[in-house]
């Protein structure tokens, strides 16, 4: 039985207006009445191209601000934070996984994983290195620790990106088509590796995907095209561990 913890992301009455394209009178509006993601929970966001999936992730991360509504990360309302505080919160509480991996080619695998610490000006203490080592083991790429990014396969790159997303022990991982660049054999393996590693850390996963074959791996599916939320599996809400 899967265990879900207290909500780590809560979007309420969220509205975001896209600027009207040239020649058009009205723009497109993304509306999310309520979306709550609990610790340990995984949610797939699906929908046709242009329906606002990536925008939803960017709103959830505080990268862009909504016209109205609230975004709560843990107990923090992003609208109350300035740009600098939002970035700090993103660094500490949110992990990112991208379709194109977005690893820095001039760093090796371990250095890429520890990048959030360096970007945040945080101390690279033994605990941080231990966490990185644990994730490398967990994702099965410990032997690639010192390897350059360009010498990795796509699967290995995405595993590295997953390690980077989880190394700060975030509350939630936002994944934008994490399996989009992988071959069919690798897709499920990598997705399950992400979800398992996140669950182990009690982190939620909100993932945009076009791979409908993989939806069964998620706890819930949000279809932005249909505007409905489907709940699979049985979950129960528990308090986050102290």
């Amino acid at each position, binding site marked *: 039985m899967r265990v879900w913890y207290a909500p780590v992301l809560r979007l309420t009455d969220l509205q975001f207006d896209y600027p009207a394209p040239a020649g058009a009178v009205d723009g497109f509006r993304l509306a999310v009445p309520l979306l709550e993601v609990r610790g340990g929970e995984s949610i797939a966001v699906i929908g046709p191209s242009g329906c606002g999936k990536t925008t939803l992730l960017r709103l959830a*991360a505080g990268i862009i601000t909504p016209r109205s509504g609230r975004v709560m990360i843990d107990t923090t309302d992003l609208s109350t934070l300035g740009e600098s505080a939002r970035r700090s919160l993103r660094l500490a509480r949110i992990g990112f996984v*991208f379709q194109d991996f*977005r690893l820095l*080619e*001039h760093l090796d695998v371990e250095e890429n994983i520890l990048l959030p610490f*360096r*970007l*945040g000006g945080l101390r690279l203490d033994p605990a941080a290195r231990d966490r990185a080592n644990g994730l490398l083991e967990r994702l099965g790429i410990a032997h690639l620790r010192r390897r350059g990014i360009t010498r990795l396969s796509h699967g290995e790159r995405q595993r590295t990106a997953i390690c980077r997303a989880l190394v700060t022990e975030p509350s939630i991982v936002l994944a934008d088509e994490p399996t989009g660049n992988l071959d069919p054999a690798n897709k499920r393996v990598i997705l399950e590796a992400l979800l398992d590693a996140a669950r182990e850390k009690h982190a939620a996963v909100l993932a945009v995907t076009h791979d409908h074959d993989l939806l069964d791996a998620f706890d819930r599916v949000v279809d932005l095209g249909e505007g409905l939320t489907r709940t699979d599996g049985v979950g129960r809400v528990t308090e986050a561990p102290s």
Partner: protein
Amino acid sequence: MTGLRHAFFLARKHLSHHRGRTALLCVALFLVAFLPIAIDRLVDAGEQALRARADSTPLVAGAAGSPIDLVLSAIYFREPPAATISQAEVDALRADDLAMVLPLVFGDRVKGGPLVGTDPDYLEFRGLEISSGRNFAMAGECVVGAAVASREGIVVDDKIVTEPREIFDLAGAYPLRMRVVGVLAESGSPDDAAVFASTSTAWIVQGRGHGHIKVDEEVDERLVMGRTGGDDEPSVVRMNAAIHEFVEITPENVADFHFHGETVDLPVNAAIVLPRDAKAGTILFARAETGRVRVQLVRAAKVVDRLLVEVFRVRRILLAVLGVVAVATVLLIAVVIALSVRIRAAEIETMHLIGCTPSRVPLIIATEVVILVLSSGLAAMLAGFGVTALVPAVERLLLG
């Protein structure tokens, strides 16, 4: 502090990953910093060397013409001045014991260095020490400068042959084989690269004096082109020009060497004049101006000062040009960095998405620039110190 350390780490990693581009930027920055330093140091060092040599050469006498050419020829033994004075003028300068006069006859070369015909007193005047052997005393003897000796591995009692003057002139003077009687200690001056001998030796090398080779029974008959005369008249033997590839003056044949014409008419390229005192110097200048001695008499230091004014003007122009080039290079590097930032847009966006502060990315890029500038600047500074070692070579290149 931790943030700065991380920025330095990321900057260093980025620069070392893009080695080619980093090396190119470093070289460009190095040149921008190094060239003005190098020019400044070379000109300064050249100025000091030139001034020191000129300051130790009170007056220079020579034929009318460019005083700069005359002085540079006299102190660096470069190309002789276009016109010469005669030995008679040298003697005239010596009249009344107003000055010590050191004639300089040069233009020929031996073992890659100039052969300087002068008085034996020249070595003492320049403070040159003989590290082995003795000073030259008779025609055919020479003293070799330290640089020539070490380059050619010459020691006392070696024989060295002057370089042919005109290899296609069958009637020309043969090279002279000279005996090395002394080797000079290193002085750090152009004298190190010269070979010193008497003026007679230099004139013989020029073909103004010669000896006669005895054709006896040991001569290869194949070189004999014809014989005339008989028992009652002196015999004349005509020999092929290949009879000897050099001539040599020895104590046995020195008496056979002679000059055609009067010795006082023989040419002297320049003369260093050391007046006994200021008054003697004034008298000599007066004699030169009134034509009592038919020479151009100049103060070496003043001539060099005039030359240096031109050198400094050229340096200012050169530095101004380099300044413009430096500004253009820096702007170009700024464009390269700006373009590189655009190329790194995805990387920078990733950093922002992950949550780095707005100042972090500029800090990393600024650190990269600082590393480039500091490493290039440091290399330029070290190379600037190294330039001093090149001064003698540049001096040789520019001044012969």
